[in-house]
């Protein structure tokens, strides 16, 4: 009797639930989003850029080394140095993003296979060490002109490449393994896109370095070939991603927001414009396709940055939606900051004030007006 009774209910046991992809158009709780927005900001976006370059350039250097073709030495050397540079600076951004950065070592307190953040922390540590060893062996080998060191670098680059592959892609997994609807629906495509765009960017960066160094033209051409291959794949995967989002009827706040702010064409434009300097003159005499490829590479370097901001923006959009829903809620309006605000509006220090922290007026950020913000409702999960 009970089961038949339950069937009558809106969510009776036998009918269980609508699947999470279905769009609900009924009454919601004052339109509030169910999930909390991600708190990632500019620092994480910058890290996505740097970490991706570090991981992919290690891979490019290792493959160039294993090909053993003449004229690849530049790619190997530059790739390893670039990788080390990226992996030294990237984690600094990560630590800077922690709300309690003095406890950053707690990231290595445990290993948790269900947490991409934990997987990433350990992989970053391993990758940092391996990249350091590879770059150091490369450096010493170059200085002393001893092939033994270079062989050592080649062996060290195998585990470094494996770790680099994780570093370049786990960030996509990390944001996909949340309950943020936009990211959660792209679980497989995001890491793929991150890996591809990391490769495109690294190839672009290395080709840029090659252009500005005295290296054989063949080296640059090979890098451009790789950049072109990766850029083509990137185009395909990002189209697939867009189509998946369209199919799921998810809003695409990231793209829309970036495009509306005019950032997209602007950054692309800078990429193309700046690629017109020296190489343009050089390539003007040669086949024009080379100039185009190079411009594409330059554009991609900036595009990777843009992509990182895109994914940051989708988190921000949900945060903005939350701001709209809590327009007078200073907790929502406040920019997350490690520093407790010490000044009130009149500039008077309240650090030693006995007033409860939650009513210090200095924390009230200037309220955004509706007119200068694009709102997106993230909907319910």
């Amino acid at each position, binding site marked *: 009797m009970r089961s038949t009774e339950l069937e*009558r209910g*809106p*969510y*009776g*046991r036998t009918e*269980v*639930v609508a699947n999470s992809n279905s769009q*609900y158009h*009924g*009454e*919601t709780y004052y339109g*509030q989003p*169910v*999930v*909390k*927005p*991600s*708190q990632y900001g500019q620092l994480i976006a910058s890290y996505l850029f740097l970490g991706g370059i570090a*991981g992919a350039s290690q*891979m*490019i250097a*290792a493959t*160039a080394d*294993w090909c053993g073709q003449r004229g690849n030495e530049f*790619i190997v050397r530059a790739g390893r140095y670039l990788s080390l540079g990226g992996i030294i600076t990237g984690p600094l951004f990560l630590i800077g993003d922690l*709300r*309690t950065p003095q*406890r950053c070592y*707690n990231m290595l*307190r*445990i290993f*948790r296979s*269900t*947490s*991409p*953040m*934990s997987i990433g922390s350990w992989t970053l540590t391993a990758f940092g060490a391996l990249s350091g060893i590879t770059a150091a062996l490369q450096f010493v080998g170059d200085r002393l002109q001893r092939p033994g060191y270079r062989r050592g670098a080649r062996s060290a680059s195998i585990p470094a490449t494996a770790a680099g*592959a*994780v570093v370049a*892609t*786990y960030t*996509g*997994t990390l944001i996909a*393994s949340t*309950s943020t609807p936009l*990211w959660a629906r792209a*679980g497989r495509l995001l*890491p*793929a896109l991150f*890996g591809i765009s990391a490769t495109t960017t690294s190839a672009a960066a290395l080709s840029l370095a090659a252009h500005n160094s005295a290296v054989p033209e063949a080296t640059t051409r090979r890098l451009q*070939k*790789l950049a072109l*291959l*990766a850029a083509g*794949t990137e185009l395909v995967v990002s189209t697939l991603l867009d189509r998946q989002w369209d199919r799921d009827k998810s809003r695409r706040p990231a793209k829309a927001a970036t495009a509306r702010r005019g950032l997209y064409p602007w950054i692309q434009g800078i990429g193309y414009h700046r690629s017109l300097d020296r190489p343009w003159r050089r390539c003007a005499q040669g086949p024009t396709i080379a100039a185009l490829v190079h411009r594409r590479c330059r554009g991609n370097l900036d595009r990777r940055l843009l992509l990182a901001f895109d994914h940051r923006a989708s988190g921000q959009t949900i945060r903005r939606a939350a701001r709209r829903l809590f327009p007078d809620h200073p*907790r929502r309006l*406040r920019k997350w900051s490690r520093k407790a605000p010490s000044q009130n509006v009149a500039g008077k220090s309240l650090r030693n004030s006995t007033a409860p*922290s*939650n009513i210090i007026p200095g924390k009230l950020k200037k309220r955004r007006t509706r007119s200068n913000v694009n709102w997106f409702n993230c909907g319910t*999960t």
Partner: protein
Amino acid sequence: MTVPPRALEYSESLRPGVIPQEAELTADCTIEPGRSYGFFTDTTLCIGCKACEVACKEWNALPAEEFKLSGKSYDNTGALSATTWRHVTFVEKLKEADGKRASELQPFQSNWLMMSDVCKHCSPAPCLQACPTGALFRTEFDTVVVQQDICNGCGYCVPACPFGVVDLNALDGKAHKCTLCYDRLKGDLQPACAKACPTDSIQFGEISVLHKRAHKRVENLHAQGRTDAYLYGAAQTPGATGGIERLNAFFLLTDKPEVYNLPPAPSLPSRRVLPSLLTGLATMAGLAIAALAAFRGE
């Protein structure tokens, strides 16, 4: 002269035997490590008094939110946050099914829906699975708690929670959420909100007992003609989907979960980790082959 029998109940100054745990008197359950405890929130009994919100803030020494009128019925709290671990939602059902303004009151609870929202202490818990530091852990009472001396404020638990419960506090830079009064449980006391609830809308107890009680309550409500009552978050009910076996704080609802700002089908984000990682690695392998092809040729 005869002594009234009830007076005799108080004639002994000392009770025979061991003094019972307080929870035994107030919640009819003993609190022992190794068993699962949680809340059963029966929304049909909620009167929206917010005693749970106040009791929670008082016991856990949480600061008040800003004093503002939200314009959303009596809900000036807004949502669960780092400093609000109980939140009473107020839904005024002012529209009929055809979208027009209601012209008459419902016979049951007028046109009101109220629910005291709280951390669901999911089993398994997405926030716990996402936490890279181990600050979030499962206690001996099968609840999920953030260890404030370990949390480094990475904020990954915030988007991981499918219910939007965990939140970061900007002032101390740590994640906060309901602890199911871990300190009180250790002292054989039931959580502050459940103790303060005047209508027993919030019931604390052992999960298996609560489940039985809740199913019985649903049956009773159905018998009374309230056929839209259902459980949200008990095992095999909506809310316990997508890898989440059960919510240790579960609810009895009478409308769709979305109306109460609950997700209709929450899922464990960690289920996406392995396929996603493997896709990423396969992509990188493909790119390495592409790089080999590009570097080998002229």
